[in-house]
């Protein structure tokens, strides 16, 4: 009754091809944006912004990137941690070498560098598929981390191999470094994520996105109808790595502030982002957000309920949390193998028919 397109007539091609053709969708998106930018920063304290929302947004960006590659183009990648490290180390070197360029261009630039590295490691995808490709990207993960841990140039020959983000400002607000303004950080990351989520949504439904999906669904058929696998696969690797690189740059420079490659970007990072898109929903922009939310928020939520709510012993709570998150993942996947985004789609269908389900 509330949610349906009846009565919304399209009188031009533009309106028919709009990103969100249904009016209610546009209102919801607008509402989300207003809440994100207008309400949230004033409402929440530093703990919420720094410990919950920043990682959620940054992981959502990384999940978007991986979703482009795995969800839309069907290429399984276990190299996310490595590519995030490329973004982080690029932005670190750039921040040291060219601080005058400004932080936002440097993040974009480190995304571009990661895109090049990603495309390079995407080359094997032209020959190998499926699990074998996963192994090739796993090699990228281990190689990149080894490289950043081994070669002193990347971490400016720091005695401990750690990188620290120097202070930088955006529009006069300190974003990185210890003095960084929390609200400023939030706005910057939220802007990046909102903007690039929009770009992803657009890419996915355009010609490039359709090429990717054709490759994903059946690459030989796609080739026969004129999709060039070389371009499609490598562009998916490049665009995906661009997103992941930016996420890595923000992850290091804005959120963590300092990082060591072996811990911050290890293989668990790759799995975490992969779980996010599997749980959230492959091939869905919304799914990337839902998955990131689930994997970032759920453990913290459980911990806070148990420790602050019931006064459970911290160690016991940690064990229960591991079990619960595992059970929830399995549970969700049994109930809905296509992820949370699919649940949302079903819900939408239901709302559309409500109150007359037949």
């Amino acid at each position: 009754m509330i949610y349906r397109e009846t009565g919304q007539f399209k009188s031009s091609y533009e309106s028919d091809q709009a990103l969100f053709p249904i009016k209610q969708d546009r209102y919801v998106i607008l509402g989300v944006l207003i809440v994100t930018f207008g309400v949230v920063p004033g409402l929440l304290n530093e703990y919420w912004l720094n410990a919950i929302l920043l990682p959620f947004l940054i992981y959502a960006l990384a999940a978007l990137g991986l979703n482009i590659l795995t969800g839309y183009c069907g290429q399984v990648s276990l190299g996310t941690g490595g590519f995030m490290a490329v973004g982080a180390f690029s932005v670190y070197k750039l921040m040291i070498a060219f601080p005058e360029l400004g932080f936002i261009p440097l993040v974009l630039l480190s995304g571009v560098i990661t895109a090049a590295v990603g495309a390079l490691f995407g080359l094997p995808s032209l020959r190998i598929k499926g699990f074998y490709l996963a192994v090739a990207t796993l090699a990228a993960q281990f190689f990149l981390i080894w490289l950043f841990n081994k070669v002193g140039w990347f971490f400016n020959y720091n005695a401990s191999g750690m990188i620290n983000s120097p202070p930088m400002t955006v529009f006069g607000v300190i974003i990185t470094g210890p003095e960084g303004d929390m609200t400023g950080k939030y706005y910057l990351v939220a802007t990046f994520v909102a903007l690039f989520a929009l770009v992803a949504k657009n890419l996915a439904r355009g010609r490039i996105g359709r090429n990717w999906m054709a490759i994903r669904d059946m690459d030989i058929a796609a080739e026969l109808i004129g999709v060039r696998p070389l371009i499609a696969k490598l562009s998916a690797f490049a665009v995906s790595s661009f997103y992941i690189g930016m996420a890595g740059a923000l992850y290091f420079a804005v959120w963590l502030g300092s990082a060591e490659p072996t811990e911050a970007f290890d293989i668990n990072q790759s799995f975490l982002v992969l779980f996010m898109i599997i749980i959230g929903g492959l091939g869905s922009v919304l799914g990337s957000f839902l998955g990131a939310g689930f994997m970032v928020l759920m453990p913290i939520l459980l911990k806070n309920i148990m420790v602050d709510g019931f006064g459970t012993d911290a160690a016991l709570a940690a064990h229960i949390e591991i079990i619960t998150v595992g059970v929830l993942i399995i549970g969700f996947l049994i109930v809905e193998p296509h992820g949370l985004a699919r649940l949302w789609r079903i819900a939408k269908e239901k709302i559309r028919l409500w109150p007359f389900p037949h």
Partner: protein
Amino acid sequence: MNIAKLTRQAVLALLAMPLLSGVATAYELTIPSLDYRTGPYAPNGIPFANGYGDYLHMLNERDGGINGSKINLVACETAYNTKRGVECYENTKGEGESGALVYQPLSTGITYQLIPKSSVDRIPVFSMGYGRTSAANGKVFPWVFNFPATYWDQATVFIRYIGEKEGGMDKLKGKKIALVYHNSAYGKEPIRTLEKAAEQYGFEFLQLPVDHPGQEQKSTWLQVRQERPDWVLMWGWGVMNQVAIKEAASIRYPMDHFIGVWWSGSENDVLPAGDAAHGYLSGAFHQPGGNFPAHDDIRKYVYDKGMGLGERDRIGEVLYNRGLVAAMWTSEAIRKAMEIHKTNKIKGVHVRDGFEALDVDEARLTELGLPGFTIPVKITCENHEGPGKVALQQWDAKAQKWSLVSGFYEPLRDITAPLIAEDSAQYAKENGVVPRICG
């Protein structure tokens, strides 16, 4: 507890999350404890957290806290993971009326995260014998304390010990010393110092990294077997230690020429290797064993009341004592801060003053029920690493106990001091810190 009540509490907990302020009755001293009782390093994290918590609980039970103010120990589980550690920090820093008074981050990664945050939030970080070595320079790192000694002090003490055993520092020439290290920020800390020392004394320095978590070390020890270094030093942690000791035993490397850092010298590390670990050495800055009067008080006031965090018969293990000594220095710093500011209502910013005026000498240690337990520590505005003295302890596999086998050595300050000055200056430059003026 029924479901409805559970749900209600869960909802209340959720609602309370953003507020984070409890209703305090009396002024309590909030001391967060970043434990890691889960994850790959849990066997080492548990005894430390027990020692830390038991000592503070004992103060609460015996003396009613510090100068009459109760301590509120807030445990938060990090699993030795940096991101969770940061979440814990953000979650606990505003806890209670006092706010968090001091952090003991317990992992190099978390310490590096907290160093810049501490100066903004004005909460001191006490990274006891770990973390960033150049934090010893209190002018650049006013909020970080890493006494009683740093990794660099320790590395030079090992070199001194080796020199002594070889019959003089000049005998080090031409010797070969290998470092088996955890391939992370923590493990890399001593490399630069050892390189300097190698230059100065003319020994050959061999680096053998071991990747996290360190279960696979066959190739490392094969290299040791081929290269036959005269001495092996180890910067290991968690499961890596036990594996290394077992591997060393399997290639019949002489254990009394194998020295671990103080994080590689606990019961957990040597017991799995059995008799083969006999004679293994490690650094130490406090005594092992559970027969000090303070331990008796912990048994009497904490364990007899059933409030102990761990098992009674594990009191006095090396890492338990390490947690205990950390709690002792922390509580002394808080006491000092109360004296300086003449109030019990102190905050983190005051505790830093307490740390900078900390002076725990032998007489005070005896008063605290820990006579001869550790070295006297005196901290000043510019010196945050304290005495820097390190002793060596040796494992006796038959008696199954550690004992100190050497006195406390002075570090080779001619090597460490310039390195600290250089590294802290680089940090100051990169992060735009203006070194403060002391005194």
